[in-house]
């Protein structure tokens, strides 16, 4: 008896949309290890593994919190500030579309959104690498994914007050980019600078990782932006194509600025430009024309470049410039929609240049509210965690490096001088070792 309505509902799932969203979800998950590579290249060799492991840990921690409670708080119901607990533990998240507009299984929608929560948590680690205790980061990641990410995802995507007002955010300028960027600033302020910051040059140890990571991130971003239409329709195609266009234009700007400033186009600068370009188009992808996407790439890179030049001259050791590459770029992208959105391209709303000043107001509200919420809550959250456990490694451990301290491994171990520890009852006699007593 009950088989009939279920079959009827299942028929609403579109196979093409579902196929694309399955692939897009896998693409977005790949962005987190890619980010690990990008970040690991930017730190010193003694912290390579720890930096990558923070991204790996984000997958573990944020996936669990998302399934237990985060998804429900973000996407259950249309409360102004936060969702309900109806989907806690993924209760009732099944194979039917989640609402009338959706054409993919609810479970797949949840999985796609989970990969967003994961990479956002991983992004913040860039602010605290090379000195934060691994255990403290795990606790922070678990709590942040619920109290900041799930809330902002509800505001922008889940029917919260921003979505209700008509603020346009295609793929996460609010919960992903501005949230991670401004949380990163708060985290850097609470955790504090690395002990040698501002005194010694702390340089990237492997530019190739940085370039490879950036390339893989860009590749994954086609799933991130291209999948954020949740179908294979026009907005998705527009977002996908703009994800190709805007970063290319940001690269051009970065080359020119690098050449003007230092007479050399730097590789790590280029990798940074790719990320900045992808972030710029993230909120705007499915809403602005390809022409405006080019303008966004060319011009939007300017404030990010300025921030990246200025930040190391300050005392704030926001180590891998998450604020510049994500916070500022996300902020710029969100506002840009309010200027140049076109109904002809997005089917939803015009921006200021096409006669709709209200849209810019809605965008500006998001650009103020999201950073304020992310910064404040992250600041308080880390202060609270810091009251219960130390947030950072001892000076000695920081000097030795996080890899040996927290993982008992090195990224570039040679094996020379490594003595095999044989179990007591082993038949082999261990090699004699110099023992200083």
């Amino acid at each position, binding site marked *: 008896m009950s088989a009939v309505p279920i079959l009827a509902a299942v028929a609403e799932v579109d196979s093409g949309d579902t196929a694309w969203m399955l692939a897009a979800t896998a693409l977005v998950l790949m962005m987190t290890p890619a980010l690990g590579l990008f970040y690991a290249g930017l730190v010193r060799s*003694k912290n390579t593994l720890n930096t990558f492991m923070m991204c790996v840990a984000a997958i573990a921690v944020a996936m669990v919190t998302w399934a237990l409670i985060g998804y429900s708080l973000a996407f259950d119901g249309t409360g102004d500030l936060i969702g309900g607990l109806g989907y806690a533990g993924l209760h009732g998240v099944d194979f039917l579309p989640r609402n009338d507009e959706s054409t993919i299984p609810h479970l797949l929608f949840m999985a796609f959104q989970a990969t967003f929560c994961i990479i956002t948590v991983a992004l913040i680690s860039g602010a605290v690498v090379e000195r934060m205790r691994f255990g403290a980061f795990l606790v922070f990641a678990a709590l942040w994914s619920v109290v900041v990410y799930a809330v902002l995802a509800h505001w922008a995507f889940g029917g919260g007050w921003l979505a209700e007002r008509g603020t346009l955010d295609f793929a996460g300028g609010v919960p992903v980019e501005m949230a991670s960027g401004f949380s990163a600033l708060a985290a850097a302020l609470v955790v504090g600078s690395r002990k*040698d910051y501002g005194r*010694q040059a702390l340089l990237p140890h492997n530019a190739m990782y940085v370039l490879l990571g950036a390339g893989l991130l860009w590749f994954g971003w086609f799933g991130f932006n291209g999948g954020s239409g949740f179908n294979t329709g026009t907005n998705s195609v527009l977002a996908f194509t703009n994800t190709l266009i805007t970063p290319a234009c940001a690269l051009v700007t970065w080359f020119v600025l690098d050449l003007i400033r230092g007479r050399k186009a730097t590789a790590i600068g280029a990798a940074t430009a790719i990320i900045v370009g992808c972030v710029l188009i993230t909120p705007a992808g499915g809403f602005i024309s390809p022409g405006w996407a080019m303008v966004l790439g060319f011009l939007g890179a300017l404030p990010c470049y300025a921030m990246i030049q200025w930040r190391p001259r300050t005392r704030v050791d926001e180590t891998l410039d998450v604020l510049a590459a994500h916070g500022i770029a996300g902020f710029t992208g969100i506002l840009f929609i309010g200027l140049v959105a076109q109904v002809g391209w997005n089917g939803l709303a015009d921006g200021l240049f096409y006669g709709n000043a209200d849209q810019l107001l809605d965008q500006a509200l998001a650009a103020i509210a999201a950073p304020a919420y992310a910064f404040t809550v992250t600041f308080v959250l880390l202060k609270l965690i810091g009251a219960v456990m130390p947030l950072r490694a001892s000076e*000695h451990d920081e*000097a*030795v*490096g996080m890899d*040996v301290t927290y993982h*008992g*491994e*090195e990224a570039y*171990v*040679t094996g*020379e*001088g*490594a*003595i*095999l*520890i044989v179990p007591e009852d082993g038949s082999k006699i261990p090699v004699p*070792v*110099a023992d*200083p007593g």
Partner: protein
Amino acid sequence: MKLVIGIVRPEKANDVLEALYRAEVRGVSISRVQGHGGELERVETYRGTTVQMGLAEKVRFEIAVSDDFVQPTVDALCEGARTGEVGDGKIFVLPLDRAVRIRTGDTDMGAVTPVDK
């Protein structure tokens, strides 16, 4: 004329350089070495394999100086490299027979005195 050899922790190498510059010792060579000197050994695990790291990464400074500069150099090495824990390293001072500056053919005292460009 002496050759001062200092073997220090890699993470203190920058501090040592700073201390040397402050003591106006300017001719320095460094190399990365591995050594065993009595520090508490690290245990690392790679999948099922657990190993004791019997050799630690060190940075070796070689500094040729005139006799007047031996003490300031040794002091700078100590000041820059000391953490107070086992594994801070060693300093060796050796007699030096000859030194030649390749560019000019200057020998001995002339060769170990840095020139200001």
